[in-house]
């Protein structure tokens, strides 16, 4: 009896080892929100068909948010607000209300370094143009009068502009909200080990299945295809803003898409800012805010926030260097 128990224990143990190393995730990738969105599910206790169905529901929610918040889509609700917001108050939608309200909170928190009303200045720069150019400085100065989050008139029912010509651009926050919502849909349907990655901004939820296994790599901002470094993360959200995503070079000067709401020109102090936070909306918006603040002011800001960490890459005397907040400093490793 005892002998067979020992043999049985050994057999079960060997099976246990095999299962541990065999996690085959189910992945779906789609083009949404002007980038790729990848949903990876590691949970093993549901059928493949059921997991794919739940992933489909999460994608539906992202599509729904995109239809409301994408200002490049002429038929989105935000485009309608941008066209008519100065003439009359637009009836509020729950998604739009949440995203705009959160934007206002982060604008106040970051003292205006994050501002969704930069839309009018962004239009001047037109980074999606085949032949982008530097706009006239007087035109930028004039348009800056339309950039101020305090000029939004917002309540739970209506949204409008206090000045005509204003434009909202939710590009630095809507993706984060969509990631949070996709993860919420997965959780509601019983998935507890997964990752949603939208163009490099991401959120993960984790069980013992994948705990301790994930490295989050930060792209090298200047050497294409190379990584700068990594940290380990089980659950949480990460977003990065970099000057290498959308840019053009004119007369040896790099003009990128992260504009300083106070000057109307690209913020020049950082190269890349990675924020780690509990939710993706906060990480997404703060990555832009801290990028605009610059490494010194940005680091002071992050150190004063609870549950927020950051890794900032910037140039000093022509050299690429990095700095990180207290909570992540010892956990960040350079590649190679």
């Amino acid at each position, binding site marked *: 009896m*005892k*002998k067979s128990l*020992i*043999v049985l224990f*050994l*057999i079960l143990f*060997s099976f246990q*080892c095999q299962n541990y190393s065999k*996690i*085959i*995730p189910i*992945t779906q*990738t*789609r*083009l949404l929100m*002007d*980038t*790729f969105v*990848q949903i*990876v599910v590691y949970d093993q206790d549901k059928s493949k068909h059921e997991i794919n169905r739940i992933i489909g529901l999460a994608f539906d929610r992202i599509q729904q948010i995109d239809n409301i918040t994408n200002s490049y889509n002429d038929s989105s609700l935000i485009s309608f607000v941008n066209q008519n917001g100065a003439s009359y108050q637009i009836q509020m939608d729950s998604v739009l209300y949440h995203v705009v309200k959160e934007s206002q909170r982060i604008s106040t928190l970051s003292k205006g370094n994050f501002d969704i009303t930069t839309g009018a200045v962004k239009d001047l720069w037109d980074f*999606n143009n*085949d032949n982008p150019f530097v706009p006239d400085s007087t035109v930028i100065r004039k348009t800056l009068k339309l950039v101020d989050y305090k000029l939004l008139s917002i309540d739970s029912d209506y949204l409008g502009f206090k000045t005509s010509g204003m434009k909202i651009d939710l590009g630095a926050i809507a993706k984060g909200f969509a990631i949070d919502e996709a993860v919420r849909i997965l959780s509601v349907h019983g998935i507890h080990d997964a*990752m949603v*990655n939208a*163009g*490099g*901004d*991401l959120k*993960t939820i984790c069980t013992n299945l*994948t705990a301790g*296994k*994930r*490295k*989050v*790599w*930060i*792209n090298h901002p200047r050497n*294409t*295809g190379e*990584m700068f470094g*990594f940290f380990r993360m089980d659950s949480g959200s*990460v*977003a*990065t803003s*970099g000057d290498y*995503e959308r840019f053009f070079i004119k007369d040896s000067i790099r003009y990128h898409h992260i504009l300083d709401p106070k000057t109307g020109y690209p913020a020049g102090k950082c190269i890349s800012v*990675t924020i780690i936070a509990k939710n993706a909306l906060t990480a997404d918006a703060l990555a832009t805010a801290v990028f605009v603040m610059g490494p010194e002011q940005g680091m002071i800001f992050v150190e004063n926030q609870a549950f927020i960490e950051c890794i900032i890459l910037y140039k000093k005397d022509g050299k690429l260097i990095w700095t990180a907040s207290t909570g992540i400093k010892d956990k960040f490793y350079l590649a190679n």
Partner: protein
Amino acid sequence: MKNKNSFLSTIFKLLTTGDKILILIFFLFGFVSLFALQRYQQPGSTVLIKIANNKIYRYNLDKDREINLHGPIGTTRILIHKGKVRVIHSDCPQKICVKSGWISGSFEIIVCVPNKIIIAIESKNNQYFDVITQ
């Protein structure tokens, strides 16, 4: 220490020669399969291509080739070479996909938003948990 030794010797006394051989076979099997699995898993990587969120194509990453993909705005030509893949030509305006360079890891992706093309690598190695923030 004494207790531990007596515990082990009790177990050892319980085992017959057959049991010992069986345990040895288990260990040998585990050891051999560890290497066998590693050899077996390393190829197997495929390039997954998705066009306009519906058409899906899969190509072996170990077989060098050039492929023309046709999206809504024109052609995207990709090159698979020595276990890596990149976009070498695209009809899109900003050529972000071409500038993305080579990818080879299972967590890397190239996207052409205007031509609605996603190029990803599928493999079963442990890097599958990793992700790139950018």
